[in-house]
């Protein structure tokens, strides 16, 4: 019989051997862990780069031992040159945005938990899934190569604005081969992310277990799904942008470089290109990218808060619809990064309006979280603390967005530390708080062991207070007129405010050091942690119905059947106060209660 010989692609044999199990694994859980590991390496690299930047900013003559071995030209004798400061900044931004904020909340946790939460054996296309990780890994290797070539990393910043990014070595150190590596790396990264997004979408649409209707998916599954839709569109635009950049740099075309452009006293051999074109394409990706970073964290902290409050949110549906509208609106606002780029002023108005509109779903989300927390009996643990921290960061960082969305105010605040503070809080730290929350919450499922709560809480408080100490002063500095991307402030008009910068640097060193508590906790718990039960948080979703860590095929030979909405907490009459999604117990909301 024809059908019986069909072997569905998503059911693969149990992995055998080291290579199949840990390296070229088809198992979505191992791939998720690989993404997590890559993000972990990238985040610590990025953090150390930010330390170097902060130190250089306030003590430009400081000798950093050993740095001269990384770049003899960029840091002669261990003293960072102004150009090398820009290299460090570029690499910090690129690593953090692409390899941390895209990989950790979305690719890492999404890969591990999305298939389990919908009751699937694996992703729809395990081979694509494996490829997407290894392509992303290649992108990381290519990017990191820039540190080890004589040219050094590029100095164009993570946005790599044309035309300087497109003209080669005349634009400064690192702009010849370093910049080429950057363009290549990001192009490769786009391919990996597209493969990943395709997989997420097909899996969510078609591999849901029996009874798992779309509205019965947990909120974080929804967040990953919406994120994958955003990522599919965004990276499909960044890839062409990078291809055009590579062609301008290496094939002599003129997509971005205008005619008669003089860089370093040399007329560039290009004609008629449009520098604004890069900005349009880049920000058409770049703004949705912000939501690629934050939406998964929104879903994750909703999921964790519900579990810690032991009751559902005021409305899960509204949360899902709000996330959808944020995703939709994220495509109509890219021009708000370009208010001062020479666009038609009318278009600034046209971009300002949807930007302010986006605050509506964002506010709705915040109100739902806060309204649900009000009067709830929240269990405080590392995961729920970081979830609360997320809300705090999201609000504190989001409020400054109101100011930046106004073209007239943005004329003053554009390219100042106000902007830097804004996006670090709302996109960077908030999203990372989601990742921390997810790690503390799901680590028992991923490794079969509990993380240390005391260390977790210590990590939270230092990070929480430290983040505010670092990024709140950024806003005030920005209002004073502190321009971003300047290498140091000791001998210019910012000299009177150098004390602020010193304070920030010290806070950054302390907060960064606290991340090693997290790293220690992670590694120590992995081997020595208390063994975790299958469902240590008394949670309801499908990942808690299977052993910790899950077997290679997730549900064994069973096919889970789903009977309930994802968050049946505070249920009377059951054994606990909750009913799991695959439990056949029937739950009817009590009327008038």
């Amino acid at each position, binding site marked *: *019989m024809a*059908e*019986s*010989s*069909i072997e*569905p*692609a*998503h059911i693969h044999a149990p992995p055998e051997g080291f290579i199949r199990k840990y390296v070229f694994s088809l198992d979505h859980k191992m791939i998720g862990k690989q993404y997590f590991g890559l993000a972990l390496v990238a985040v610590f690299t990025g953090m150390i780069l930010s330390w170097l930047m902060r130190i250089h900013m306030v003590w430009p003559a400081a000798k950093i031992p050993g740095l001269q071995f990384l770049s003899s030209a960029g840091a002669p004798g261990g003293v960072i040159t102004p150009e090398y400061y820009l290299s460090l900044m570029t690499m910090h931004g690129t690593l953090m945005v692409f390899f941390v904020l895209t990989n950790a909340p979305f690719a890492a946790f999404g890969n591990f938990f999305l298939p389990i939460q919908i009751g699937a054996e694996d992703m*729809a*296309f395990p081979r694509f899934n494996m490829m997407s990780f290894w392509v992303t890994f290649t992108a990381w290797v290519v990017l990191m190569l820039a540190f080890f070539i004589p040219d050094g990393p590029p100095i164009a910043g993570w946005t790599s604005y044309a035309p300087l990014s497109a003209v080669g070595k005349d634009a400064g150190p690192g702009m010849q081969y370093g910049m080429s590596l950057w363009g290549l790396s990001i192009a490769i990264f786009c391919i990996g992310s*597209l493969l990943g*997004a*395709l*997989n997420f*979408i*097909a*899996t969510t*649409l*078609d*591999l849901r277990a*029996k*009874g798992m*209707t779309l509205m019965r998916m947990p909120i974080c599954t929804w967040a990953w799904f919406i994120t994958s839709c955003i990522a*599919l*569109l965004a990276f*499909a*635009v960044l890839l*062409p*942008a990078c*291809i*055009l950049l590579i062609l301008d740099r290496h*094939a*002599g*075309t*003129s997509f971005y470089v205008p*005619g008669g452009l003089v860089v370093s006293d040399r007329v560039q051999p290009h*004609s*008629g*290109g*449009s520098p604004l*074109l890069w900005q*349009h*394409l880049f920000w*058409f990706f770049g703004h949705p990218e912000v939501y690629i970073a934050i939406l998964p964290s929104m879903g994750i902290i909703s999921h964790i808060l519900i579990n810690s409050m032991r*009751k*559902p949110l005021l409305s899960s549906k509204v949360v899902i619809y709000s996330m959808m509208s944020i995703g939709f609106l994220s495509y109509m606002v890219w021009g708000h990064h370009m208010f001062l780029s020479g666009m038609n002023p009318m278009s600034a108005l046209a971009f300002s309006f949807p930007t302010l509109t986006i605050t509506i779903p964002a506010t709705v989300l915040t109100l739902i979280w806060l309204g649900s927390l009000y009067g709830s009996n929240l269990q405080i643990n590392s995961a729920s603390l970081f979830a609360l921290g997320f809300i705090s960061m999201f609000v504190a960082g989001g409020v400054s967005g109101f100011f930046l969305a106004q073209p007239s105010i943005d004329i003053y605040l554009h390219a100042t530390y106000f902007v830097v503070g804004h996006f670090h809080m709302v996109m960077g730290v908030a999203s990372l708080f989601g990742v921390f929350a997810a790690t503390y919450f799901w680590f028992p499922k991923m490794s079969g062991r509990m993380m240390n709560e005391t260390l977790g809480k210590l990590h939270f408080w230092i990070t929480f207070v430290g983040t505010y100490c670092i990024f709140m002063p950024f806003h005030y500095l920005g209002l004073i007129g502190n321009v971003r991307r300047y290498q140091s402030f000791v001998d210019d008009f910012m000299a009177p405010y150098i004390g602020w910068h010193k304070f920030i640097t010290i806070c950054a060193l302390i907060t960064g050091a606290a991340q090693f508590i997290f790293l220690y906790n992670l590694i120590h718990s992995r081997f020595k942690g208390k063994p975790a039960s299958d469902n240590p948080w008394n949670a309801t979703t499908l990942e808690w119905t299977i052993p910790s860590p899950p077997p290679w095929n997730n549900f064994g030979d069973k096919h889970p*059947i789903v*009977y309930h909405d994802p968050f049946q907490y*505070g*249920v*009377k*009459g059951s054994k606990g106060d909750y*009913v799991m999604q695959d439990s*056949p117990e*029937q*739950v*009817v*909301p*009590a009327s008038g*209660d």
Partner: protein
Amino acid sequence: MSSTIVSTMSSQATALSQPKSAAAPGALLAQRTERYSSSGIWVGVFAITMSFAAFTSALFVREGTADWAHLVLPSILYVNTLVLLASSGTLEMARHRLLSEAEGTRKASAWVLLTLLLGLAFCVGQYRAWLDLRAEGIYLATNPNSSFFYLLTFLHALHVCAGILALVYLAGRLVASHTTFRRSLFLNTAVYWHFMGVLWVYLFLLCRMKL
């Protein structure tokens, strides 16, 4: 916010209903495979469309600048267009054979092979078009029009090559043994291949009107 458990009896009223016929597990899995691989191909088509939309918008932005020239397209492109459209037709013939006749696999594989040949012919034709332009001294970096022409046609040809690989695999499966042949493989290859045709017609019109 609280709810009450009224019974422990299983109630599947809102669960997905079991397929009507008591299908064998293999058939059920095959159905699912077909569905998700179909979603996958459509999502892929969507992503490729988005990329070419980005290139199109780049073309529109670039069009307004001073050095915009005019490009006379090589006439072989008309032939190539017909060849690619014909290949969609032959692939549909293969589908017709597969669906209608009990012993249609052999005939279907002939049509798939013909599609494959036409696809290769298209690529050779595109290569010929590039050579024609080069003979006129028009290279990638000559002017923005030629840049866009080489870029769009090359990227399209690259995607067609991916389609050709799929066709090779499909033809191999059809010729070797029809028992392990997956219907979804054929359907998805067909979606992708027709999309290549549609995309080419769009790109050709774009080049014809704008370059």
